[in-house]
C-alpha cells in the first residue's frame, strides 16, 4: 500500500486517524488484512495444538499470581499459621512455608495453585496429542521439518518447566524427584559428580537449588517457551496450514474458512472452554497437596512416590532396570543401572523424534513440498513406528506406576516388573507389526472399494440364469480420497562402480539408505491407477448402476480457497 494513493479517503474519526498514523509508518494494515483473510482448514484435530497454547496462557496468568506469594528461599522457619493442623510448629524451608501460606491464608491462593498445576498436566498432554496428530498425518514433511524441530524443543522445554515447577514447593515428594535428578546427573561418567556440585551449589540438597530452580522456572524457561512458541506460530502462518486429503484439496491451495470471523471465533470459543475446564478442575479436584507430603527432608520416602505423568516414563525406566548393572572399573563406579535407563533410553526416544522427519525424507527421496496430509494407513511403516514409539512410552509410564497397579489389581509387583521388562522389548515390535498389517489391510480394502464399488445387497438374475450382486461405484469424493496418495518404492541407487569400473565413493552409505528404504517401502499397496479403474469398469459393466447424483461440485459451500502464491 502506498502512502500517496490519492483515492484513499482521509480518515475523519480519531480512531481512523490513529490507525492511519500507524499504518503510514508500519504498514500494519496490510499485514492485518492478509492475516484476516488467511484461510484456515477446519478439523477438530487442528485444534489440539490450541490445547497446549491456551493452557500455556492459563499457566502464565496463574503463574504470575503465584510468584506474588512464593518465596524461593531454603532458610528454615517454624510454621506458625493455624492451617493445616498437621503442619503447625514444624520446621520447614521458607519456600515450603510460603506454599502453605499461599494455599491457606491467601484468598484464592489454593485455587490458583491447583489451576496452575492442572494446566501444566493438560499442557503436556495437549503437546503430546498435538504431536501425535502431526506425526501420524505426516505434517512434519517439507516444508515443515523445521517447525517439527521447534515443536519437539517446545515439548522438552515443557518437561523442564514442569519438573522445575514441581520441585519449587520443597516438599518430600518433589525432593525425592530432585534426589533422583541428582543421581542421574552423578551417573554421567567423569563429569557427573562435578556437575551435581555445580547444579546444587555443593552437596545435595544444599541451600541453593530452590532459588536457582525458581529463576529457571519463572524466567529462563518461560522466555524460551514464549520465543519458540512465537517461531512455531510464525512458521505455521508462513507455511500455511496443512489440510486433510479430499476432493478439491491440493498441495497448491488451502480449503477452509477465513481467519476472521470464522476461525477467530472458534479459537476464542476454544480458549474460553479450555480456561473453563482448567478452572473447574482447579476448583474441585485436589492436586499436589504438599502438606500431605511434608517439608523436604532427605530421609523419608512415601509409598506411591512418583513424578507428574509426563516424567513417569523416566521413573518407569529406572524401576525396570536391574540394579546389578552397577560396575566398578579401577576404583571408579560406572552406574549403568542409572545411566542406561535415565540418560540413554530417554536420549534414544528424543533422538527418534528429532531425526525422524529427515530420515523419512531421505528414504523416500522425496524433495517436494507437501501441504495435503497423509491418511495414516497410506504410510504403514511410519504409522507402525509411531505406534511402537507410543507403546514404549506407555509401557515405561505404566512401569513407573507398578506399585499402584499391584495394589489396585491385586498383583505381585515383582511379576509386574518382570512382565514390563519383557514387554518393553517385545511390545513395540509387536505394536509395529500389527499396526503395519492393519494399515496394509485397510489400503487393500480401499483398493477393493475403488475397483468394485459398494456392495448394495441387491442380487440380480439374468435371463441365462447367471446371478450377480449389484455394486454401486464410489462417487468422486470417495474415490479421490482413496486414490490420491503415493506409495513410495524403495530407493534406487547407482551401481557400485562407474562406467570405467572404478568403485564409486559413497556407495556403501547409499546401500545402507537403500536397506532402510526397503524396510520402509518393501511392503506397499499401490493406489488404483486410472487404467486399472477403466479395466475394472469395462469388465464388470453390467453390474454397475449409475451414481444417483450428478457430477459433484468439488469445492462446495461457503468455504474459501486460498491459492498458493
Amino acid at each position, binding site marked *: 500500500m502506498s502512502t500517496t494513493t490519492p483515492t484513499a479517503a482521509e480518515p475523519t474519526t480519531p480512531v481512523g486517524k490513529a490507525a492511519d498514523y500507524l499504518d503510514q509508518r508500519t504498514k500494519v494494515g496490510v499485514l492485518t488484512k492478509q492475516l484476516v483473510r488467511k484461510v484456515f482448514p477446519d478439523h477438530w484435530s487442528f485444534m489440539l495444538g490450541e490445547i497446549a497454547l491456551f493452557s500455556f496462557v492459563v499457566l502464565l496468568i496463574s503463574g504470575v499470581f503465584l510468584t506474588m506469594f512464593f518465596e524461593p528461599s531454603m532458610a528454615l522457619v517454624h510454621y506458625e499459621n493455624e492451617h493445616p493442623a498437621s503442619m503447625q510448629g514444624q520446621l520447614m524451608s521458607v519456600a515450603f512455608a510460603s506454599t502453605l501460606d499461599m494455599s491457606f491464608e491467601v484468598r484464592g491462593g489454593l485455587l490458583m495453585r491447583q489451576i496452575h498445576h492442572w494446566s501444566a498436566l*493438560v499442557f503436556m498432554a495437549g503437546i503430546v496429542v498435538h504431536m501425535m496428530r502431526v506425526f501420524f498425518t505426516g505434517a512434519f514433511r517439507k516444508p515443515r521439518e523445521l517447525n517439527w524441530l521447534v515443536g519437539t524443543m517446545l515439548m522438552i522445554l515443557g518437561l523442564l518447566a514442569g519438573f522445575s515447577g514441581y520441585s519449587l514447593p520443597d516438599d518430600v515428594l518433589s525432593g525425592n524427584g530432585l534426589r533422583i535428578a541428582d543421581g542421574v546427573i552423578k551417573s554421567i561418567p567423569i563429569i557427573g559428580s562435578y556437575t551435581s556440585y555445580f547444579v546444587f551449589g555443593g552437596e545435595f540438597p544444599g541451600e541453593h537449588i530452590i532459588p536457582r530452580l525458581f529463576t529457571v522456572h519463572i524466567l529462563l524457561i518461560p522466555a524460551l517457551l514464549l520465543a519458540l512458541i512465537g517461531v512455531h506460530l510464525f512458521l505455521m502462518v508462513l507455511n500455511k496450514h496443512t489440510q486433510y486429503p479430499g476432493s478439491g484439496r491440493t498441495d497448491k491451495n488451502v480449503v477452509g474458512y477465513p481467519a476472521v470471523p470464522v476461525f477467530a471465533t472458534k479459537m476464542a470459543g476454544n480458549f474460553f472452554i479450555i480456561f473453563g*475446564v482448567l478452572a473447574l*478442575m482447579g476448583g474441585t*479436584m485436589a492436586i499436589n497437596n504438599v502438606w500431605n507430603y511434608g517439608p523436604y527432608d532427605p530421609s523419608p520416602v*512415601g509409598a506411591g512416590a512418583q513424578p507428574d505423568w509426563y516424567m*513417569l516414563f523416566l521413573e518407569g525406566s529406572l524401576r525396570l532396570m536391574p540394579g546389578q548393572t552397577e560396575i566398578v572399573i579401577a576404583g571408579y563406579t560406572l552406574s549403568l543401572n542409572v545411566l542406561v535407563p535415565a540418560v540413554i533410553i530417554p536420549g534414544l526416544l528424543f533422538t527418534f523424534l528429532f531425526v525422524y522427519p529427515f530420515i523419512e525424507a531421505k528414504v523416500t527421496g522425496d524433495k517436494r513440498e507437501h501441504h495435503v496430509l497423509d491418511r495414516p494407513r497410506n504410510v504403514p511403516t511410519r504409522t507402525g513406528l509411531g505406534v511402537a514409539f507410543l507403546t514404549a512410552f506407555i509401557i515405561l509410564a505404566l512401569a513407573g506406576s507398578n506399585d*499402584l497397579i*499391584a495394589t489396585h489389581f491385586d498383583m505381585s509387583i515383582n511379576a509386574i516388573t518382570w512382565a514390563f521388562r519383557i514387554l518393553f522389548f517385545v511390545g513395540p515390535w509387536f505394536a509395529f507389526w500389527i499396526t503395519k498389517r492393519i494399515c496394509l489391510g485397510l489400503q487393500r480394502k480401499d483398493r477393493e472399494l475403488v475397483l468394485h464399488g459398494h456392495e448394495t445387497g441387491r442380487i440380480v438374475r439374468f435371463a441365462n440364469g447367471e446371478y450377480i450382486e449389484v455394486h454401486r461405484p464410489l462417487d468422486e469424493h470417495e474415490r479421490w480420497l482413496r486414490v490420491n496418495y503415493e506409495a513410495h518404492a524403495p530407493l534406487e541407487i547407482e551401481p557400485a562402480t562407474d562406467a570405467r569400473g572404478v568403485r564409486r565413493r559413497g556407495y556403501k552409505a547409499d546401500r545402507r539408505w537403500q536397506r532402510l528404504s526397503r524396510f520402509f517401502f518393501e511392503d506397499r499397496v499401490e493406489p488404483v491407477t486410472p487404467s486399472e479403474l477403466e479395466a475394472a469398469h469395462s469388465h464388470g459393466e453390467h453390474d454397475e448402476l449409475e451414481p444417483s447424483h450428478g457430477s459433484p461440485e468439488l469445492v462446495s459451500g461457503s468455504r474459501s480457497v486460498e491459492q498458493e502464491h
Partner: protein
Amino acid sequence: MKALAARRHHRFAPVVLLLLALLVTGGVYAALAPSPAQADTASTEDIETGKKLFQANCATCHGPNAEGTTEAPSLVGVGAAAVDFQVSTGRMPMQMSGPQAAAKPPQMDEEQTAALAAYVASLGPGPAIPTDEQVDAAEGDAAEGMALFRTNCAMCHNAVGAGGALSEGKYAPALLETSDRNIYQAMLTGPQSMPVFNDATLTPKEKRHIIAYVAEQRDGSAGGLSLGNLGPVSEGLWAWIVGLGLIIGAAVWIGAKSS
C-alpha cells in the same frame, strides 16, 4: 471413573462393612472393653468360652493349645491386642492362602472376640488391648503425628495412609477406614510384614499422635476431591480423562459446528 469406583469398592468393601459393624457395636464395646488391668484378671468363664471357641475355629492351624503348627505361628505371648486386631479386622480365622491374610468382614462378634483374646492372654503375658483413652484421636496432636507418620509409616502406607505395595503381592493396606483401636494395635503387634512399634520405639503418646494424624486425613482435602490420595499418577490419569476428555470433546463439537 466407574471402573475406578468399582475397584475401590471391591478393595475396600470389607473394610467399609467392618467399619459399619464397628460403629453399630461401638457403644456396646466401650462398655465391654477390658482395660489392661482387667485383661490379666479376665474371668475364668471368659477364658473357658475363649478356649472352646479357639478349639473350634483356630486350633486346626494354631494347634489345640495355641502352641503353633507348621501352618501357623504359636500364639503364646502374642497378647490380647494381637488377637483383638486379627479377629476384629476379620483377618483371623484365616481363610484363603494368598500372599498375606487379608482383612474381611469379622466372623466373631464382640463377645466372642473378647473371649478369644482373654484365652490367648491367659497363655502368656503380652500386649493388652488399648484403652479408649489411649486411642482417642482428640487427645493427640496431628502435627506431631504427621512427622512421626512420615518417618515411620509413610514408606509402606503412603503419605496419608492410602496404602502401598510391598514385594511379591504383599501390601500395606489403606488406613483411612481402619478404627483407631486397630491402628494402635497394629503398631503394637506388627501384623505379618509390618514391623512392631513397641512402647520404646513409639511411646503410647506418640501412637496417639499418629492416630490423630490419620483421623485428620478422613476429613478429606482442602483442595477438593482427593482422587484417592494416590499422588501424581492418579492426578495424571484424571488430567487425561477429565481435562483432555472434556477439551477434546469440545474441540470435536466446535469442529462439527460449521460443516
